[in-house]
C-alpha cells in the first residue's frame, strides 16, 4: 500500500495545509450568533450567517485552483481539454477491446498520450516566441511577450519526463529549453538569472562603460551557465571594444571578446535541429562526443593563449576568462553564476555532465544541487520537479494536487501512467479506503465536482464522470437531479444528457419534477405533457380524477372548452391515465349533443344517442356520472320525430336508474347537483320512449 505522503494526499485538494483556517469577512455590525450551511452543486457551499441585528447569505467555492489563471481562461482550458480527454478515453477503450488485456499500454500507447499532451499543452498558453528579429532594440536582452504560467510549465515538465519517449535521449537539453522558457516564474519566490537580467536591462541606458560594470560580467557568466547562448552573444556585442571611435588600441581586447563569442556560438548540443538558436546540434552521441572534445580543446587552447597578457582591460580579461571557466565546467564558477538549485542543476548538465542521457542518477545530482543552493522559500514547480526526479508518482500527484489544483491532476494522470506499469498499478488500483475506487477515478470525480459548481461548466462534467468506472454515474445522477427544472433550456439539456448516458430512471424523475412544477404553477398543459413523458401513471390518474370531478360538478359549455383540451392532451391511451377512456367518450358525446342543440337533425341525434349508450354500457364510466349524463340527454329521450332508443337500450338505461337508487342507500353516495325533479323527469322520458319504441318494433 502506498503511503499518504505527508498528509498531502487529501481527497479534495484545498490549497494550504490541512489545518488551514480561512477568515470569512461578513461585514455585519454585530457578532455572528449562528451559522447554517448548505451544499449547492459541486463544491459550492452556502452559508447563512445570523447576527443579532441582521443576517447574510454568502457562497464559498471550495477548490484549490490558484489565482494565476483568470476564471475565463480557466473555463477556456476546461472546455478545450474535453475533446482531447474524450478522444484519449475512446482510444483506450478501443485498444483494450482490441488487445483483450486489462492494460492497454502497449508500445505505441505513449504516442497517443503525447498527442493528447500536445493538444492540452497548447491550451495553456500561446506558442513559443519566434526567434528575435535581426534589427531590434539593442538594449533588449531578455525575450518577453510569451505569457508563461506555472501550469504550463508543470504540464511541459510532466510531458517531458513521462510521455515524450523520443526526446528522452536529449532530456537535459529539453530541461535547458524549459528553464529558458520558465525561469521568469521562479522570480516570484526568489532571485533568478532571468530576474537579474531584467533588472540589468532596465538600467542599461544609464550605464556608460558597460564592461566596467561588474554586473555585466556576472550576468554574462550566469546566462552562459544555463546555456542562454543568444543572450550571452548579444551582450558580448555590447562590449565597448566593438565601438568604432576607439581612443585607445583595443584590437586585442576586441579579438578576445570575439573569440569567446565565436566559441560560445559553436557550442555543441546533443539534440535535433533547433531553429534559430546558437550552437551546433548533433543527433548522434558519437558525433556529439567528437565535436564536444574538439570544442573543449579549443577553449583550453584559448585559455592558454598569450594574448591575455596583452589585453589591458583587467575587467574584460577576468570576465572573459571566467566565461571560459564556465565552459570548461568549473563547478565553483557554475555555482557562483547560478541563483538557485534548478539553474545550478541545468548548468551541471551543460558543462560538467554533458553526456548524461535519460533520467539515470538525475535525482542524486538534484539533491547535491539543493544542498549547494538551499532556499528558505521554494517555488511550487521546484517541489514538482523533485518529485519527478525522485520518480515518486505519489509525490508528483500530491504536488500537482496541492499546488496546481484538480484540473491538472485529473488530466496529468494520463501522462503519469503513459509509460509506467508501476504508476498504472498505483493509480488504477481499486482501494477499499477510497470506497472502492482508484486514485485516478477519485481525482476525476473531484475535478468533475469542481466543474459542477459552475453554471457555465456543469455540462462538461458528464464527460469526466462517465469515464469513471465505479462512482461516476452515481455522482452524475446526483448532479442531474440537482439541476433546476424551472427553465426549459436547462431541462432539455438535462434530459439530453440522460438520454446520452441511458439514465432513463433519472430522466423520468426529472420529467416528473417538471410535470408537477408546471401543473402546480397553473400551466396544466405543460404539466400533463411532462408527466406523460415521465410515464407517471399515479399523477396522471390523479389528474384524470380531478378532471372527472370538475366534469361531474358542472357541465356548462364554458367549462367543457376548458377540459376538452386537457382530455386531448392526456391522449387516448387509457393505460397510463386510468379512466381517460371514459373522458374521451364523454367528450364525443358532448360534441354530438352540441350539434343536436343547434340543429334539429335526427341523424345527429341518433349519433348522440349512440355515444350515450356506449358511455352507459362502459364499465369505466363512474356511477356518479350516470344521472348527469341522462339529464343532459333529456332532449334525446324526448325526441319529437321518433323514439331514438330501442327497447333494449331503454331497458339498459332503466336498469342503470334502478342501480342508482340502490347505490343511494350506501353512505359514500354523493348526490349530483341537479334539479330536484331531474330523476323523475328522466324516468318519465324513458318510460315514454319505451312505450313508443315498443309500438315501433
Amino acid at each position, binding site marked *: 500500500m502506498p503511503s499518504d505522503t505527508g498528509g498531502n494526499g487529501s481527497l479534495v485538494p484545498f490549497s494550504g495545509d490541512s489545518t488551514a483556517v480561512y477568515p*470569512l469577512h461578513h461585514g455585519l455590525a454585530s457578532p455572528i450568533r449562528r*451559522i447554517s450551511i448548505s451544499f449547492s452543486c*459541486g463544491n459550492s457551499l452556502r452559508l447563512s450567517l445570523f447576527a443579532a441585528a441582521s443576517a447574510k447569505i454568502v457562497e464559498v467555492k471550495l477548490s484549490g485552483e490558484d489565482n494565476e489563471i483568470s476564471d475565463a481562461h480557466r473555463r477556456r482550458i476546461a472546455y478545450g481539454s474535453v475533446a482531447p480527454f474524450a478522444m484519449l478515453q475512446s482510444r483506450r477503450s478501443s485498444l483494450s477491446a482490441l488487445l483483450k488485456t486489462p492494460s492497454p499500454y502497449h508500445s505505441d500507447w505513449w504516442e497517443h498520450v503525447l498527442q493528447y499532451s500536445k493538444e492540452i499543452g497548447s491550451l495553456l498558453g500561446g506558442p513559443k516566441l519566434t526567434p528575435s528579429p535581426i534589427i531590434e532594440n539593442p538594449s533588449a536582452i531578455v525575450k518577453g511577450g510569451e505569457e508563461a504560467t506555472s501550469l504550463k510549465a508543470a504540464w511541459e515538465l510532466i510531458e517531458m519526463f513521462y510521455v515524450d519517449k523520443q526526446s528522452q535521449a536529449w532530456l537535459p537539453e529539453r530541461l535547458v529549453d524549459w528553464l529558458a522558457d520558465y525561469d521568469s516564474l521562479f522570480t516570484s519566490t526568489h532571485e533568478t538569472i532571468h530576474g537579474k537580467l531584467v533588472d540589468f536591462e532596465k538600467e542599461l541606458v544609464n550605464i556608460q562603460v558597460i564592461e566596467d560594470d561588474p554586473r555585466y560580467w556576472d550576468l554574462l557568466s550566469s546566462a552562459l551557465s544555463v546555456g542562454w547562448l543568444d543572450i550571452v552573444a548579444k551582450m558580448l556585442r555590447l562590449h565597448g571594444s566593438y565601438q568604432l571611435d576607439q581612443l585607445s588600441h583595443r584590437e586585442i581586447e576586441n579579438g578576445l571578446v570575439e573569440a569567446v563569442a565565436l566559441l560560445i556560438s559553436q557550442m555543441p548540443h546533443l539534440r535535433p535541429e533547433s531553429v534559430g538558436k546558437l550552437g551546433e546540434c548533433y543527433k548522434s552521441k558519437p558525433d556529439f562526443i567528437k565535436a564536444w572534445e574538439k570544442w573543449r580543446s579549443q577553449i583550453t587552447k584559448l585559455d592558454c593563449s598569450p594574448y591575455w597578457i596583452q589585453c589591458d582591460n583587467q575587467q574584460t580579461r577576468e570576465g572573459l576568462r571566467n566565461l571560459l571557466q564556465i565552459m570548461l565546467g568549473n563547478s565553483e564558477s557554475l555555482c557562483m553564476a547560478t541563483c538557485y538549485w534548478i539553474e545550478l542543476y541545468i548548468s551541471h548538465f551543460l558543462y560538467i555532465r554533458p553526456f548524461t542521457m535519460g533520467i539515470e542518477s538525475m535525482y542524486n545530482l538534484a539533491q547535491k544541487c539543493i544542498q549547494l543552493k538551499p532556499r528558505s522559500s521554494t517555488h511550487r514547480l521546484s517541489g514538482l520537479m523533485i518529485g519527478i526526479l525522485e520518480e515518486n508518482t505519489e509525490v508528483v500527484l500530491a504536488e500537482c494536487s496541492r499546488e496546481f489544483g484538480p484540473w491538472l491532476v485529473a488530466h496529468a494522470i494520463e501522462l503519469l501512467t503513459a509509460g509506467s506499469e508501476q504508476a498504472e498499478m498505483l493509480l488504477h488500483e481499486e482501494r477499499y479506503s477510497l470506497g472502492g*475506487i482508484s486514485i485516478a477515478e477519485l481525482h476525476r470525480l473531484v475535478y468533475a465536482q469542481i466543474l459542477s459548481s459552475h453554471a457555465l461548466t456543469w455540462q462538461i462534467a458528464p464527460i469526466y464522470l462517465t469515464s469513471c468506472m465505479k462512482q461516476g454515474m452515481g455522482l452524475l445522477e*446526483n448532479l442531474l437531479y*440537482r439541476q433546476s*427544472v424551472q427553465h426549459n433550456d436547462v431541462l432539455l439539456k438535462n434530459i439530453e444528457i440522460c438520454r446520452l448516458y441511458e439514465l432513463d430512471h433519472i430522466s423520468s424523475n426529472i420529467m416528473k419534477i417538471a410535470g408537477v412544477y408546471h401543473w402546480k404553477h397553473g400551466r396544466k398543459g405543460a404539466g400533463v405533457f411532462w408527466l406523460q413523458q415521465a410515464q407517471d401513471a399515479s399523477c396522471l390518474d390523479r389528474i384524470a380524477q380531478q378532471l372527472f370531478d370538475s366534469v361531474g360538478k358542472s357541465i356548462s359549455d364554458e367549462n367543457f372548452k376548458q377540459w376538452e383540451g386537457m382530455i386531448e392532451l392526456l391522449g387516448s391511451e387509457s393505460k397510463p391515465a386510468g379512466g381517460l377512456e371514459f373522458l374521451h367518450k364523454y367528450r364525443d358525446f358532448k360534441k354530438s349533443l352540441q350539434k343536436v342543440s343547434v340543429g334539429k337533425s335526427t341523424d345527429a341525434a341518433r349519433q348522440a344517442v349512440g355515444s350515450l349508450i356506449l358511455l352507459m354500457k362502459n364499465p369505466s364510466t363512474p356511477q356518479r356520472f350516470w344521472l348527469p349524463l341522462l339529464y343532459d340527454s333529456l332532449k334525446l329521450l324526448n325526441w319529437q320525430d321518433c323514439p331514438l332508443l330501442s327497447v333494449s337500450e331503454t331497458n339498459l338505461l332503466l336498469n342503470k336508474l334502478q342501480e342508482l337508487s340502490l347505490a343511494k342507500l350506501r353512505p359514500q353516495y354523493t348526490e349530483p347537483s341537479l334539479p330536484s325533479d331531474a330523476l323523475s323527469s328522466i324516468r318519465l322520458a324513458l318510460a315514454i320512449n319505451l312505450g313508443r319504441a315498443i309500438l315501433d318494433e
Partner: protein
Amino acid sequence: MAKELLRLDNGTSCTAWNYSGTRLAVGSSDGTLSIFDSRHPPSSSSLLSTFKSRILEGNIVNIVWLPPEYGDAVACISADGIVSLWEEVAEDSHSLQWKMCKSFGNSSSKVLDVRFGVSSTGLKMVAAYSDGNVRVFELLDSLELRNWQLQAEFQNVIESVSAFGKASCVSASISWNPQKGGGQESSFLIGFNSNTSELNSSKVWEFDQAHQRWLPVAELALPEDKGDEVHAVAWAPNIGRPYEIIAVATRKGLAIWNLGLNPDQNGRLSVERVALLSGHEGLVWQMEWDMSGMTLATTGHDGMVRLWQANLNGVWHQQAAFEPTS
C-alpha cells in the same frame, strides 16, 4: 473568496435552500416566511424576493423543503412545535401564491424536527416529537399535500419492551438515506437530545415491506456512549461505495460511522466507527454532506465552519475551517 448573495433583515431565524439551490426560504422570529428566487441565467447570482408573509404567530425555528417531485413546498417548524406545510400553487385562474395545506403537532406534543423521504410508494414524512415519539406520515395523493395518513408511530428504542418514564426531549435530528430509486427499502436515521438515555442514541430505521412496519436495523453508538445526547446526524450520499457513511455529533465529538449494506441473519447492519473528530467545542449545530459524500461541512458552538474529509488511506481529518470576522 466568499461571495455575498443576500442581506436579510433583523429577526431572520432560519434559512433553507431548495433541491437545486435556486430558491431560498427564510423564516423569521415574528413568524414571517419569505421566498427568494435566483434570476435566470444563473450567472447573475442576485436573489429576488417573490413572497413574504406572516404565516405564524410564533418564531419559525426551522424550514425544510419537500422533495421537488411533490412541488414547491416547505415545512415550517415553529418554536411552539407546530409544523405547517406551505405550497406554491396557482389554483384555477388565480395567480401563483403560497398556501398552507396542512399542519401537524400541538401544544402538548411538540414537533422537534421533520424530514421528507421519497420511497417507492410515495412521499413519507418522519416527525420527531418532544415526548420522544417518532411518527411516520404518508402522503395519500401525490398531487395533493393536504391528505396525510399516519403510517407508524414508535419510539427510538431497539428493545420495544424497555420501560422508562415520561420522556422530555430538547431536540431531535433526522436524516433520510439519500439514495434515490433502486430496489432499496427506504430508511432513515434519528437521534434525540432528551432526558431519557434509551431514546438518545441514533438508530437506523428501515421499512419492512413484508410486515409493513419500521424496524431498527442499526444503532450508531458505542456501548458506553449509548445514553449520549445526539446533536446532529447526517447520512452521506452514496455514489457507489460498498458501505454507507453517516456522521453523528454528540458532546464527545463528531463520529463518522461506516454502515454495512447487507443485513445479518437478525436483520441488523454492521456498523463501525471509523473516526471520532473533535471540534466546535463539543456542540455541533448542523452537518451537511456535499453531493459526492466526500466532504462533510459542520457548524457549531465555536462559530466556525469546518470541513472534513478522508485522505487516501481512509483517515478522516479536518481539511479546512472558516472563521467569520467582521
